[in-house]
C-alpha cells in the first residue's frame, strides 16, 4: 500500500496532458431563482464522522452549464415534470372519488418538509417507507386507485413535486429507534463489494469522489438532489433507478427498484446527506 502512495504522486503530472482537468468539487454557491439558498456542502453528520469530514451535493461536481441550469426554474427541465405532477395532484382517480388534493389541500403548504424526512418509519405498517411507498399507499388505501410503477413517469413526477416544495430545507432522516435495523442493512449494502468488478458504493463515492473514472467525475453519490433530470437520458431519474445503474456497472445482478434492499440502501444514503438541502429536481449529466 505504501507503494501506491509513492506512485500516486505521479498522477498529477500526467493529468495535465490528457485534459481530465476538473478534479475537485467546484467552489460555488447554489441559489435557486435568486431566492432559495441551497446548502451544497456542510459538516458530515455524526454517524459519518470517521469516514468523511464534509458532505457535498453532486451539484458541486457538475460542469458550469449544468450547474447554471439548476439555478433557475425556467432553465431546469425537471420543473416541467413538477407542473405535470401538479395536474395529477388535483386529478380525482380511483373508487373513492378523491385526488391527493382532497386530503392534502395545497401541496406547497401541506407537503413542505416531507421530502426532507423520507425514508421514514411508519408505525402502523411497521416498516420504513420511501416517498414512493407512501404515495402508493395513499393511492391504494385512500383513493382506491391503482399503484403507480415504482420508477414510472407518474411516480417520479410526483416525487419531483414533493421535493420541489421542500427545496432549501435540510435533509433530516431518522436513523435510530425502529428505523435503525433497516439503516444498518443499508449500511452493510453500501460497503459490500458487489459484482464481478467487486466494487462497493464506498469505493467510488467515499474513497474516490472528486476523481475521474473514465469520463465521469465522481461525486459523493448523495441523493439530496433526487429526482434528478439527467441530460444523458433527458428524463427525471428516481433514486432507485440510479442505484440500479450503479450496481449494474459493477457487473452485478442488481436489486429491484422498491425492493427491501434498495429501501434500506436509500435510508442509509439519505442519512449520509443529513444537513444538505433538499435540491430536487436537480440537473445532472
Amino acid at each position: 500500500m505504501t507503494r501506491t502512495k509513492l506512485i500516486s504522486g505521479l498522477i498529477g503530472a500526467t493529468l495535465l496532458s490528457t485534459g481530465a482537468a476538473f478534479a475537485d468539487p467546484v467552489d460555488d454557491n447554489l441559489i435557486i431563482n435568486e431566492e432559495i439558498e441551497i446548502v451544497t456542502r456542510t459538516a458530515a453528520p455524526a454517524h459519518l464522522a470517521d469516514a468523511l469530514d464534509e458532505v457535498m451535493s453532486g451539484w458541486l461536481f457538475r460542469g458550469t452549464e449544468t450547474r447554471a441550469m439548476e439555478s433557475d426554474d425556467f432553465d431546469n427541465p425537471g420543473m416541467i415534470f413538477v407542473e405535470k405532477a401538479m395536474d395529477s395532484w388535483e386529478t380525482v382517480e380511483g373508487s373513492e372519488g378523491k385526488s391527493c388534493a382532497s386530503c392534502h389541500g395545497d401541496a406547497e403548504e401541506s407537503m413542505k418538509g416531507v421530502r426532507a424526512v423520507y425514508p421514514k418509519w411508519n408505525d402502523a405498517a411497521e416498516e420504513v417507507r420511501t416517498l414512493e411507498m407512501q404515495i402508493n399507499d395513499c393511492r391504494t388505501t385512500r383513493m382506491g386507485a391503482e399503484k403507480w410503477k415504482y420508477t414510472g413517469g407518474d411516480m417520479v413526477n410526483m416525487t419531483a413535486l414533493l421535493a420541489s416544495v421542500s427545496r432549501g430545507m435540510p435533509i433530516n432522516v431518522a436513523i435510530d429507534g425502529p428505523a435503525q435495523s433497516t439503516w444498518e442493512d443499508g449500511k452493510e449494502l453500501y460497503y459490500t463489494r458487489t459484482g464481478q468488478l467487486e466494487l462497493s458504493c464506498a469505493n467510488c463515492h467515499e474513497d474516490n469522489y472528486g476523481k475521474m473514472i473514465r469520463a465521469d467525475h465522481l461525486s459523493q453519490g448523495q441523493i439530496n438532489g433526487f429526482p434528478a433530470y439527467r441530460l444523458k437520458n433527458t428524463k427525471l431519474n428516481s433514486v432507485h433507478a440510479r442505484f440500479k445503474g450503479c450496481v449494474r456497472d459493477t457487473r452485478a445482478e442488481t436489486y429491484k427498484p422498491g425492493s427491501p434492499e434498495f429501501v434500506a440502501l436509500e435510508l442509509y444514503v439519505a442519512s449520509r446527506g443529513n444537513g444538505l438541502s433538499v435540491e430536487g429536481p436537480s440537473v445532472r449529466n
Partner: protein
Amino acid sequence: MKRSIITAIALASTAFAVSAGEIAPTEVSFSDGTVAESLTGVPGDRESGREIVGSKKLGNCVACHQVSDLSDVPFHGEIGPSLDGAGDRWTEEELRGIVANAKIMFEGTMMPSFYKTEGFIRPGNAYTGEAPDDTFGPILTAQQIEDVVAYLATLKE
C-alpha cells in the same frame, strides 16, 4: 438480508470452457501476488494488449489509469496510478499477477480481478444487471491477460 447477500456468493462458472494448454482461472498459482507461469504458453501480443487496455469493451483499464502511450484514446481516469513506466517498476511475473488478480498483490485494492471466476457477491451477466448465465467467465481470457502483460512490459519511462 445478510443471508441473502451471502447465498449469492460463489455462483460457479461451471460452463466456462478453458482451451487446451491454458491454466484455468481457479488453477492459477500465485506467489506473493506474482504468477510465474504463462497462462497459455503462447507469447503475448503487445498490439492486442494495447487495444485491450484502452477499450471500454475489453479491459477498460484507462477507466482508472492514465497511459500516455494511449493518448489517442479519450478520457483516462485517475483512480489508480499512471501506468507509464509499469514495465520498469514490475517484472512480467508481477504484472501477470496484478492483472489476473490485483487483490493478492495489493490487499483491499479497488482494482478488479480480471482472471477470476469465483467468490463474487451477486455477480451479473456483464453489464445487463441480470443474473449470470452459462457464458459466465473471467473478464479477460487467458490469452488477453498475456497480451496485456506483454503491452505493460513495454511501458518504460
